[in-house]
């Protein structure tokens, strides 16, 4: 198997061809993120007529703290916070044969999913391949009544017919850019040297 430029979901790499990234620019600060999550919490409960049947499932690693934060926000506006789980989709990715994909955390689904509404939560929506893997993984844990998708940033460049239900911020990007999103803010950086890559297509990396 030919070696491909390796890329970890958790650590944005230097460009595979040896180029460098520009200094990151701040797109959202912690306050912006907090306000976006508050709005998303309201949208989630509005769409589902409350959160009684809702389970939040954060995608490892970036979605986990966001799911916890959304649950905390929902607890402020609803009688009870929905349960929160986490899902590591490593074993379901479509690029396992191309690169070494190692799990970063143990999947933890705290409740029976059958009949529930699962809200998948991730930090950045990019190609859609992580979400596709997550849908496969959910299948092995039960049959939810519905699956919805909440992301802090939608950066475009979808390679699959997947769209988010709840979005913190739509952020138009080029493929040469990397996005990092968390509770403390959202940053964008651009490759300044080196040839344009198609890393999204090759690695299927969702977060970058």
């Amino acid at each position: 198997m030919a070696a491909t430029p390796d890329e970890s979901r958790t650590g944005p790499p230097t460009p595979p061809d040896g180029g460098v990234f520009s200094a990151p620019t701040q797109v959202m600060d912690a306050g912006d993120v907090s306000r976006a999550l508050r709005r998303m919490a309201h949208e989630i409960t509005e769409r589902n007529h409350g959160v009684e049947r809702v389970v939040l499932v954060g995608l490892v690693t970036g979605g986990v703290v966001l799911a916890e934060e959304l649950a905390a926000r929902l607890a402020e506006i609803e009688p009870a916070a929905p349960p929160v789980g986490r899902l590591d989709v490593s074993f379901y990715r479509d690029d396992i044969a191309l690169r070494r994909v190692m799990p970063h955390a143990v999947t933890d689904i705290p409740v029976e999913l059958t009949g529930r509404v699962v809200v998948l939560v991730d930090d950045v929506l990019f190609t859609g391949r992580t979400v596709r893997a997550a849908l496969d993984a959910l299948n092995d844990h039960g049959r939810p009544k519905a699956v919805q998708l909440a992301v802090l940033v939608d950066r475009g460049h979808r390679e699959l017919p997947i769209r988010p239900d709840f979005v913190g911020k739509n952020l138009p990007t080029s493929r040469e850019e990397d996005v990092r999103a968390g509770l403390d803010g959202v940053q964008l950086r651009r490759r300044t040297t080196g040839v344009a890559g198609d890393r999204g297509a090759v690695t299927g990396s969702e977060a970058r």
Partner: protein
Amino acid sequence: MKHLLGVIGQPRAMLEELLQLSDSFAEVNARAIPKVPALRGRTVATLFFEDSTRTRLSFETAAKRLSADTLSFSVSSSSVKKGETLRDTALTLQAMRIDAIVVRHASSGAPWQLARWLDCSVINAGDGWHEHPTQALLDCYTLRRHFGSLDGLRIAIVGDIKHSRVARSDVWAFTALGAEVTLVAPRTLLPPSLEGWPVQVSEDLDRVLGSSDVVYLLRMQRERQHEALVPSLREYTARFGLTRDRAERLADRAVVLHPGPMNRGVEIAPEVADLDRCLVLDQVANGVTVRMAVLYKLLAGSAADPHDAVGDEAWGPIRSGGSDG
């Protein structure tokens, strides 16, 4: 990491990585449908030149739960009977585009020789008196799940050390992970030299018993009886067997391990084998889990380890929990 040949000399970090990876597969095994598509399209062959049921079944179960295809090759029904050499047998399997060969062989070192000949991954499932690395990993995983860590555990390995590949692999894995190992055996069942072994030795099980956190019993190999290494099995049981009387003198938190198959009434009393503190069935279950981790580690992808990825520090000063590294 392409092959898993042995644990002797392996760094602690490598063992810990496999144990940590096993946690993810323990979660898979706990599901109603314990199967993931991770190794779809890969083929794993088991090539056993010695009898085994549990190790072979364990590897095949592990491969199937990862959605890999499995081929099973047993010597009794193969061309080896017609005089085919190990090399030709292995090259034949490789020509069928096998991704990994799990091999058990009576000759120490056979898996290393195969790894030199073949392009596919080789996993040692026991070679002679030498090594049995996945047994050591599953023993470590069982102890880690039970105690949280092996650091500082006092482990007594009791029985036929001399002919035991399990003991050799376990001694090195246990001590690499921070445990203290004492070998308990009559001198005739110890290797001729223990130079370089990080262990203590005792010929008196009763003195070691009360201070051990783990008593690891080895199978008393009946087929060795004709070598007259012990006067009789009854005498062995009297001095080195975990009898009911000895089991009562174990420390409160002590557990009993055994690689199987057990000789009830020889190295372990029948009623002791059924105690809660005897973790034999946990070992079997964990065997599937760690073998899934080994197969996944060897066969998933081909690129460098993602932990080598660099560039995180190139981000700005704000760090988030959202993309924790």
